[in-house]
């Protein structure tokens, strides 16, 4: 039904476009000077057709369900139901009206289902009537304006400008959405668990919170020693550290080689090949780490008399490091190539060898950019999820031994939220609190890194 209406409106839009353009030609034929190109008359009319339709459609989408729900539930209002029960009744009603209800059908619900259907059809038909009359009214108004040959280009362009502007707000809206989705759950979480316990507690054991019977009252003392995030933060930074130990030397050296030594031919092939590493999905790295690297390290350790967990931090961190190599290598490659040639020439003229020039002149000059690229790499390592979920442990150990298993922020979020969640449960909220801390940490890293890189660019441009 909605689809038919929508197609109809689109057709109406096209018709009004041609109508407007035709009108422009008729005005032109009366030897009057047009105020804009004929198609703007068409656009003008089409926009006046689209705006009311869009507004009414969105109003309906927002208010129809709530109003229908209110009307349905008004039948149950004085029977002493709780909010949850009312919601359940409403869901049952909806399911029954769609014919998908499989439980016991009570006459009450059957009656509401009928009412629901009739309300929906009333809403539907009134929508059709209102949309169509609104379109007719607004197109008639616009047509009158066209006929008097008033300006059309300016309003059309103003409208387009407004559309463009709205689109550019999407980025802000996304950020707002992220903060919004994280902050409420986080605040609720810190109402139950004191911030101090979260930041300084050393026991992370969310499974304990899960056994709570929902009918019991919330007892904050139950959660002491359950949500101490220190082991998780430590694990996150530890694994990121291992990753950077792999990624920085290899990435930086290959960046330097590509920028300074490699012939065009080597560069042409090696650079895209290394960048393939960045294009491989992280879940594939995770599989590789869990299936190949983990067992390999374990075997290697056993043969050397070391006890290595199959889910060691080393395996996860090492594979993550491989993933980050291309980020560091291509960014540092870019930075190094943008160091002005005059610096190199000066150094060579003093008799320095190439490596001396790189170490003493180019590297210091490119340092801010390189630091920026490393920071971006760290932020990526901290936010990386799948490798850790698949290859590292899920129990949060507080350890600095790379051969044992640890857990990270991202892995814990996945562990908690996989499957069904109950909002309002401290365990679910804990995941959002972790997400908030992840967001804040990476945000800081990104801002610093971007600023450093930008400053550096300005210096040489």
């Amino acid at each position: 039904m909605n689809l038919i209406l929508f197609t109809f409106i689109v057709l109406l839009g096209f018709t009004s476009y041609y109508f407007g353009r035709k009108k422009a030609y008729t005005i032109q034929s009366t030897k009057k000077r047009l105020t804009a190109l004929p198609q703007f008359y068409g656009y003008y009319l089409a926009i006046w057709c689209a705006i009311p339709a869009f507004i009414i459609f969105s109003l309906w989408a927002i208010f129809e369900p709530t109003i229908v729900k209110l009307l349905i539930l008004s039948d149950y209002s004085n029977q002493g139901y709780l909010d949850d029960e009312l919601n359940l009744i409403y869901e049952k009603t909806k399911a029954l009206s769609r014919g998908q209800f499989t439980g016991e059908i009570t006459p009450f619900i059957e009656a509401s289902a009928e009412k629901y259907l009739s309300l929906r059809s009333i809403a539907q038909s009134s929508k059709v009537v209102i949309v169509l009359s609104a379109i007719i009214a607004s197109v008639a108004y616009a047509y009158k304006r066209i006929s008097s040959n008033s300006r059309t280009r300016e309003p059309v362009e103003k409208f387009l400008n407004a559309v463009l502007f709205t689109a550019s707000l999407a980025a802000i809206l996304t950020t707002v959405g992220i903060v919004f989705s994280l902050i409420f759950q986080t605040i609720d979480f810190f109402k139950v668990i004191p911030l101090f316990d979260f930041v300084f507690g050393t026991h992370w054991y969310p499974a304990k919170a899960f056994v709570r019977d929902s009918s019991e009252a919330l007892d904050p003392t139950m959660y002491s020693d359950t949500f101490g995030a220190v082991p998780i933060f430590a694990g996150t930074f530890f694994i990121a550290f291992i990753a950077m130990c792999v990624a920085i030397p290899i990435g930086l050296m290959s960046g330097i080689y590509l920028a300074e030594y490699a012939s065009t031919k080597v560069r042409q092939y090696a650079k895209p090949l290394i960048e393939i590493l960045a294009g491989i999905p992280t879940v594939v790295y995770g599989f590789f780490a869990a299936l190949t690297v983990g067992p390999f390290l374990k075997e290697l350790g056993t043969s050397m008399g070391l006890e290595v967990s199959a889910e060691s931090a080393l395996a996860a961190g090492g594979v993550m490091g491989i993933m980050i190599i291309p980020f560091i290598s291509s960014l540092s490659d870019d930075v190094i190539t943008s160091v002005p040639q005059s610096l190199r020439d000066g150094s060579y003229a003093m008799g320095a060898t190439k490596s001396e020039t790189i170490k003493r002149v180019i590297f210091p000059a490119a340092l801010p950019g390189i630091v920026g690229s490393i920071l971006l790499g760290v932020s990526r390592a901290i936010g990386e999820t799948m490798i850790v979920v698949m290859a590292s442990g899920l129990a949060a150990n507080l350890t600095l031994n790379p051969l044992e298993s640890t857990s990270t922020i991202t892995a814990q979020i996945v562990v908690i939220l996989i499957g069904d969640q109950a909002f309002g449960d401290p365990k679910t909220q804990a995941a959002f609190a972790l997400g908030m801390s992840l967001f804040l940490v990476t945000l800081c890293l990104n801002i610093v890194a971007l600023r450093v890189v930008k400053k550096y660019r300005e210096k040489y441009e």
Partner: protein
Amino acid sequence: MNKNKEQLLNKRYKAEQRFRLYGLSAIFMALLFLTIFIFKIFSTGYSAFQKTWLIVPVTFDAELMMLDQNPSKEDLQDADYYDIALKSMADLDPKANEDQENELKRMVSYFFEKEIKNELLNDPNLIGKTKEVYLTASDDLDQVFKGNYPRDLPEDQRRVSDYQLKIFDQLVANGKVESKFNISFFTNADSREAELAGIASSFMGSIFSILVCLMIAFPVAVLAAIYLEEFAPKNRFTDFIEVNINNLAAVPSIVFGLLGLGVLLAIFQLPRSTPLVGGITLSLMTLPTIIIAARASLKAVPPSIREAALAMGASRMQTTMHHTVPLSMPGTLSGTIIGLAQALGETAPLILIGMVAFVNTIPGSPMDPAASLPVQIYIWAESAERGFVEKVSACIMVLLGFLIIMNLFAQIIRHKFEKKWS
């Protein structure tokens, strides 16, 4: 003195060579990782494209199937195939006792009854006759046949018994085991049984998510890029938008998953586990990537084009829409494809919005629950059964294949259609 100088010089040259070697070995290491990686995936994955079949004679005994004379099509649909299916397996070893018969039954997939049924539905004349039917081997025997199963393990640590192996070897010796191209891997939905599991459901899920993502992210991102590059006044607010975009590009993907969970599922009450929600979440993630690419290619259009159009009396909007934007499209499109390729490989946000649910039907619309290819990789990788290991690798090969195609496509668009301004 001179000698000292020479020594020093030699030392410096050696240092130079060492440094060069470090660089070369770094590149070598990176490429080595890539090679090991690809090799490992292909060597474990290629065998999943083959499937093992047991050829078993089946007697379509009308009595056992509870069929009357001249059964209609409906009768054939409703007939009881379990008994003849069981009997044909048991007949492989006439001396088998009850336990062994059970083991014989477990040599083929639990789906074998349906395979026999399909055989008869294709050719109703088979009633009363015996025909050799291809039955899907159980996933463990499949692995045995491919040589991936350690036969030398003690029996109690294996999922295949000595008895099953004995019968299987007899079948192999008689040429009754065949390996054919595994079509069901591409046409089946996910299954708990490794031998029946396929990627069709997750593939469709991926396609739907990517389409939703494209339909949302592309228009919004291009419009936003046009505004920011061509119309936006330089002020605090546009700076703020810019900072936002750059930051969003570096926000960890899992945070977008939390956004999808907290806003799309909890507040807007969109259906869980569906490609619709997955696509919206991914579109928010790819938005900054596309905006950045589109802005870069708008920036690459030389100002002379704009000035020429303005000089001819076009308005700024006309200049942008008729000249700048079309010229920037190749760059924008290739950026979009690269962004979509990223979205296609993304797993974590989809897990959070519930696309890890076990789905054994092929979704027909973005509103049906589905998995996606990377999530399927995750689900199978977490599964303990040996047969899934090669499936994971095969699924990875399919996914990587798609990513390579998309990236090549992006390259082609860029090189073929982009105007070089000099």
